[in-house]
C-alpha cells in the first residue's frame, strides 16, 4: 500500500535534493496574475491557455471562412482579390488544423489526462509549459504575414498563399519569393517541435503516472485515444519536419531537393507531406472519438459497449493510417499497382472506424438516453462523421476519385469529418467539461439553440458542396463563371455558412455568459463515470486530496457505488501520504517561457536573415544575423539554466477534512 502511494504521489523524476538551487532567478511562486500564468507548470492552467488561444484562432479561421464564402456567394465576384482569396484559404486551412483543432485537443489532453489517470500533474511539468509557449511562437510566425496588409512597411508580402499542403515547387523562391512563405515554413517547423515535445510528455505521463490499480485496460477511452494520438504525432511529424527543412534549404541555401533544374522531384514533397498529412487527420479525429466515448456512456447511463475492441480499433486506425498516404495522390500518376495498393489500404480503414460507430450505437442500445447538450453534439457527431467517412470511402475508389480530387467534393468530405466530426465532438467536450473547470453550468436552452443552428447551418453549407464537386467545381478557385451551373449551390452554401457563423457565435457567447453568470455546480453535475468528476469543480491545484486507487474501468462510477469502502481507503491514503511529507507539487519556472521567447526572436530573424534591419525606414543593421544569433543564445541560455535549476518542488499539507493547510514554504 505504502509503496503504491509513493508511486502515485510522485511527479517528475528527481528525488528531493537538499542542496541549494543553482539559478539566477528566484523561482516564481505567484499563482495568479501575469507572472502566475507565464510561469505556470500546472497542467490545468496550461490546458486553459491552449484552449483560450485555440478558440481565438478558431474564430479567426472561421472569419476567414466567412470571407471565402462571401467571395463565392455570386459568380465573378470582386469582394476580395485573387491573391487575398488564396491567402485566405491557405491560412484558413492552416489555422483550423494547426491552430484550432490540434491545440483544442492539446487543451483537453492537458486538462483531463492527469486527472483521469489519478495523477497530480504530467511527468515533466516544465517541458509542458515549454510546449505551450513554443506553440504560441509557431502561431505568431504563421500569422505574422497578415501584418503587411495593415502596415505596408512590413514587407512580408501578405500571408502565405500556397495552400495548406504547400506543394512544391510553388513554395520555391522562384514562384513565391515573399517572406510569408519562409514564415510559414518556420512556423510549421516550430509547431512541430511543440507537438513532439508535448506528445513525448503525454506518452510518459499516461504510461508511467497511472494511479494504483489503473491498468491499461481500465484507462478511460479518451486517455487511450490521446495516447494513440501522441504516438501518431511523434511518428508522423518528423516526415514533415524534414521535408520543411528541405524547402528551407531550397529557398535559402541553393539545394535541389525540389528544384527541377537541379534534378529534384517535386513529387517527393507530396509523399513526405502526406506521410505526415494522413496520420495528421487521424490525429485530429482520434481525440474527438475519445470525447464521444466518454460522453455517450454518461448520458446513456451505461458503460461503453465493447471497451476492448473500441480501444483496439483506435490503435488499428492509428497504425493503418500510416500506410495510406498516397490516397491523396491518386491523380499524380503513381502507376496501377501502387494506386491499387493504396486504394485497398484506404478502404481497410473503414473497418476499425465502423467498429467504433457500431459500439457507440451498442452503448446507446438499452440505455436511458438523456439528451442534454453535450449528448446532442455527440449524437450529431456520429451522424455527421458517418457521412464524412462514407464520402471518404467514395474517395478511396481511385478511379472515381480522379473526378473528385481537388473538387468541392473533397471539401465536402473533409468538412464533414472535420466539422461534423472533430468540431462537433470538441463542442460537445467543451460543453461537457465546462462545469468541471469553471464550476458553472451552461444554460441548456441556449446550448440547444446553438446546437440546432450549428447543425442545420453546417449541413446547409457543406451538403450542397458534394453536388458542386460532382458538377465539376474545382476547389481553391477564387471565382467562377456564371454559366457553369454552380450559382445556386454556392449561394445556398454561403447562406448556410452565415447561419453556421451565427450558431458558432451563439455557442461561444453563451459560454462567455456562463463563465460569469452560469449556475454554480458541484463535483459531478452529469452523474458521470470517470475520475475527474470525483474532485471539486474547479479542481484544486493538487487535483486529489489523496491519490485514488482504481478498482474498475469507470473508476468514479465504482466509487459512487462503493462509497463506504472508498471512504475508508481514502482516509488511509491521506494519512500515508502525509507521513511521506505531504502532497508533492512541482515548482514554477521562468525558463520555458524565456526559451520560447528566444526561439521567437531567433526564428523571426532567421526567416529574413539576409535582409537589412530597418526601424522607421532607417537601416540599423546590415542583416538580421546578429538578432537571430541573439535569439538562439537566449534559447540555449534558458535551456542551460533550466537544466541546472532542476524540477524542485514543494509540499502541501491537508488537515483532517482534506483541506489544504497554508502550504508550507518548503521549496527545495
Amino acid at each position, binding site marked *: 500500500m505504502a509503496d503504491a502511494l509513493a508511486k502515485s504521489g510522485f511527479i517528475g523524476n528527481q528525488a528531493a535534493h537538499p542542496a541549494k538551487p543553482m539559478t539566477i532567478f528566484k523561482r516564481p511562486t505567484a499563482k495568479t496574475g501575469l507572472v502566475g500564468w507565464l510561469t505556470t507548470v500546472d497542467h490545468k492552467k496550461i490546458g486553459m491557455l491552449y484552449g483560450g488561444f485555440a478558440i481565438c484562432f478558431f474564430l479567426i479561421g472561421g472569419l476567414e471562412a466567412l470571407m471565402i464564402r462571401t467571395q463565392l456567394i455570386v459568380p465573378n465576384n470582386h469582394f476580395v482579390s485573387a491573391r487575398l482569396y488564396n491567402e485566405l484559404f491557405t491560412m484558413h486551412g492552416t489555422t483550423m488544423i494547426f491552430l484550432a483543432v490540434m491545440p483544442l485537443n492539446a487543451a483537453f489532453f492537458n486538462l483531463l489526462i492527469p486527472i483521469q489517470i489519478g495523477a497530480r500533474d504530467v511527468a515533466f511539468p516544465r517541458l509542458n509549459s515549454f510546449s505551450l509557449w513554443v506553440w504560441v511562437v509557431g502561431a505568431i510566425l504563421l500569422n505574422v504575414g497578415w501584418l503587411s496588409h495593415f502596415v505596408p512597411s512590413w514587407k512580408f508580402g501578405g500571408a502565405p498563399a500556397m495552400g495548406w499542403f504547400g506543394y512544391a515547387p510553388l513554395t520555391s523562391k522562384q514562384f513565391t519569393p515573399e517572406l510569408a512563405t519562409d514564415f510559414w515554413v518556420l512556423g510549421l517547423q516550430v509547431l512541430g517541435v511543440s507537438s513532439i515535445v508535448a506528445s513525448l510528455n503525454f506518452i510518459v505521463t499516461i504510461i508511467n503516472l497511472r494511479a494504483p490499480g489503473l491498468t491499461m485496460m481500465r484507462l478511460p477511452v479518451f486517455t487511450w485515444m490521446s495516447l494513440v494520438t501522441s504516438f501518431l504525432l511523434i511518428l508522423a511529424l518528423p516526415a514533415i519536419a524534414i521535408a520543411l527543412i528541405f524547402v528551407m534549404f531550397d529557398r535559402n541555401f541553393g539545394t535541389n531537393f525540389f528544384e527541377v533544374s537541379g534534378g529534384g522531384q517535386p513529387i517527393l514533397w507530396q509523399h513526405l507531406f502526406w506521410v505526415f498529412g494522413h496520420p495528421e487527420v487521424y490525429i485530429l479525429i482520434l481525440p474527438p472519438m475519445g470525447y464521444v466515448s466518454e460522453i455517450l456512456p454518461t448520458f446513456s447511463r451505461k458503460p461503453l459497449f465493447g471497451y476492448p*475492441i473500441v480501444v483496439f480499433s483506435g490503435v488499428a486506425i492509428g497504425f493503418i493510417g500510416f500506410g495510406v498516404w498516397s490516397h491523396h495522390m491518386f491523380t499524380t500518376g503513381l502507376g496501377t499497382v501502387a494506386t491499387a495498393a493504396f486504394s485497398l489500404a484506404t478502404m481497410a480503414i473503414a473497418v476499425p472506424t465502423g467498429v467504433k460507430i457500431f459500439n457507440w450505437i451498442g452503448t446507446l442500445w438499452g440505455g436511458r438516453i438523456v439528451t442534454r447538450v453535450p449528448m446532442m453534439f455527440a449524437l450529431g457527431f456520429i451522424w455527421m462523421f458517418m457521412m464524412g467517412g462514407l464520402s471518404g470511402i467514395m474517395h478511396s475508389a481511385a478511379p472515381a476519385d480522379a473526378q473528385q480530387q*481537388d473538387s468541392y467534393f473533397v471539401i465536402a468530405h473533409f468538412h464533414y469529418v472535420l466539422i461534423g466530426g472533430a468540431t462537433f465532438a470538441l463542442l460537445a467536450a467543451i460543453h461537457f467539461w465546462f462545469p468541471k473547470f469553471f464550476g458553472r453550468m451552461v444554460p441548456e436552452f441556449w446550448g440547444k439553440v446553438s446546437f440546432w443552428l450549428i447543425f442545420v447551418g453546417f449541413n446547409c453549407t457543406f451538403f450542397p458542396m458534394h*453536388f458542386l464537386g460532382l458538377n465539376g467545381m474545382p476547389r481553391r478557385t477564387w471565382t467562377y463563371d456564371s454559366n457553369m451551373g454552380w450559382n445556386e449551390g454556392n449561394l445556398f452554401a454561403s447562406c448556410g455558412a452565415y447561419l453556421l457563423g451565427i450558431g458558432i457565435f451563439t455557442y461561444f457567447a453563451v459560454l462567455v455568459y456562463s463563465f460569469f453568470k452560469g449556475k454554480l455546480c458541484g463535483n459531478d453535475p452529469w452523474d458521470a463515470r470517470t475520475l475527474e468528476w470525483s474532485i471539486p469543480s474547479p479542481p484544486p491545484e493538487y487535483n486529489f486530496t489523496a491519490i485514488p486507487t482504481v478498482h474498475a474501468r469507470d473508476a468514479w462510477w465504482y466509487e459512487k457505488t462503493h462509497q463506504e469502502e472508498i471512504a475508508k481507503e481514502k482516509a488511509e491514503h491521506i494519512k500515508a501520504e502525509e507521513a511521506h511529507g505531504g502532497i508533492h507539487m512541482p515548482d514554477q519556472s521562468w525558463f520555458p517561457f524565456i526559451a520560447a521567447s528566444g526561439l521567437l526572436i531567433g526564428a523571426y530573424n532567421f526567416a529574413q536573415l539576409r535582409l537589412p534591419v530597418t526601424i522607421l525606414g532607417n537601416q540599423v543593421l546590415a542583416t538580421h544575423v546578429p538578432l537571430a544569433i541573439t535569439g538562439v543564445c537566449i534559447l540555449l541560455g534558458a535551456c542551460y539554466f533550466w537544466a541546472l535549476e532542476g524540477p524542485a518542488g514543494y509540499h502541501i499539507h491537508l488537515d483532517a477534512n482534506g483541506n489544504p493547510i497554508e502550504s508550507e514554504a518548503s521549496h527545495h
Partner: protein
Amino acid sequence: MTRTRLVHQKATRFATALLAGLGLALLTGCSLADVFSLNGKQSTVNVAGPVAQSQQDLFMVTVWVTTFIFVVVGAVLAYAQIKFRAKSEADEHAVPPAEAHGNPLVEIGLIAASVLLLVIIAVPTIRGIWYTHDVPEDEKGNAIEITATGYQWWFKFEYPTETIKLPNNAGEIPLVTGNELVIPAGFPIRVQLRTTDVIHSFWVPKLAGKVDMIPNRGNFIWFKADKPGYYYGQCAEYCGDSHAIMRFRVIALSPVAYSKWLENQKQPARSVTAESLAAEAGVAHAEFASLKTGTGSALSGSVEFDADPLGAWQTAQNHEAGEDPALIAKGRQLFQDKTCISCHAVRGHEGIGITGPDLTRVGARSTIAAGVLENTHQHMHDWIKDSNHFKPGNKMWFGGFNLLEEGEWKPNPKMKLDDQEIDALVAYLHSLK
C-alpha cells in the same frame, strides 16, 4: 414531462422558427433543384466518354454501397435514439441498465459484413484502375498522341505526329495550339502531360478524371469523346494567383472535320490583303452575333454561345465579314512594334516567341486567355488593354506590359497602347483564322 425535456422542446421550437425564417429567405433566392443540379458543363455525372463513364459507374457503385450502409446504420441509430430515450426525470436517475460490455459475435458479424461490402467496391475499383490507366491494347493503334504543357496560367497543345515543314528546309516542328484542344471524336486520345513551372492538372470532367502535370515527371492521360462536342476543362491543381481561371476547352470533331481542321492548321498564318479578300468572295463568313458583343452575365459564354457552343466554335472558324485590310496591316505592324512577337508565335508572320500561347490561329478560337473570355472583339480589346483585370498576376501583364525594376513593377513604356491601336491589334488577331 421532465424539465430538461421541456427546455429541449422550447429550444427546438425556437431554433426551428429561426431556421424556417432563414430558410424561406434563402429559398426565395434560388430553387432547391438548382442547388443539387448535376448537369453543369463540367458535370462528372453526365458524361460523354468511356473513361469518364467507367469512373462514373464506379462512383455509382460506391454511392449505392455507402447509401445502403448509411440507411441501415442510420436506421438502427435513429431507432436506438428514440426507443431508449429517458422517458421521465425518474427514468434518468433510475438504476442503470445491466452493464453490458460487448458481444463478440455481434462484433465479428459486423466486421465481416463491412469487409464484404468493401469487397463490392474494391473489385470494380481494381478493374477501373487498370482500365483508366492507359489506352486498351486493342485500341492502341488508333490512338492520337498529343502533348499538353501547363504554364502559369494557360495550356499549350502539341501534335507531335502532325508536323509542319519549316520553310527553307529548316526542319520540322510539331503543330502547336493553345488553350483549345481539338480532337477527333471516337478515337482514343493519349495526352502526355508536361509542365514548365509548377504543378497543374489536366481535367475535362465529361471526358475523364484528372491527371496532374508534375515537373520532372512523365505523366499521361487517355480519354475518348463518344460524339463530336464542346467540352469544358480546367486546371485542377492549385498553381498560384490565377489558378481559378486556368481553363481550357476540348473540341471533338467528326474525323472528317478534324482532318480538315488539321489541314488548315498546318498552313502558315493567314495574311489579309485586299486581293485575298476579293478572292474569297462568296465564301461563308462568321456572322455569329456574339462575335461582336455577347449577352448574359458569363464572361466565357454568352447566352447565344451557350445555346450551341460547338456551333459557335465552328462559326468562329470562318473569316469575319467586313475585314479591313488596312487596319489589319496596321495591327500586324503594331504586333511587331509593341514587342508582342517576343512572346507570341504567329507562324509565317513575324511572331516567334514561346512565352505566351501560339496565336497563329487565335481568331478561330472560341475563347481567349485560357477559356476565361469569349472571343469577342470587345473582350479581346479589354484583354489587351488590362489583362490583369481578368487574370490577376498573368505573365503578359507582369513581364510584358509591366517590368520589374528594383523590386517594383513599372509600366513598360514600349507597350503603351491607345484604343485605336488596340482596335487594330484586335482586327489583326481576329483575322488569324
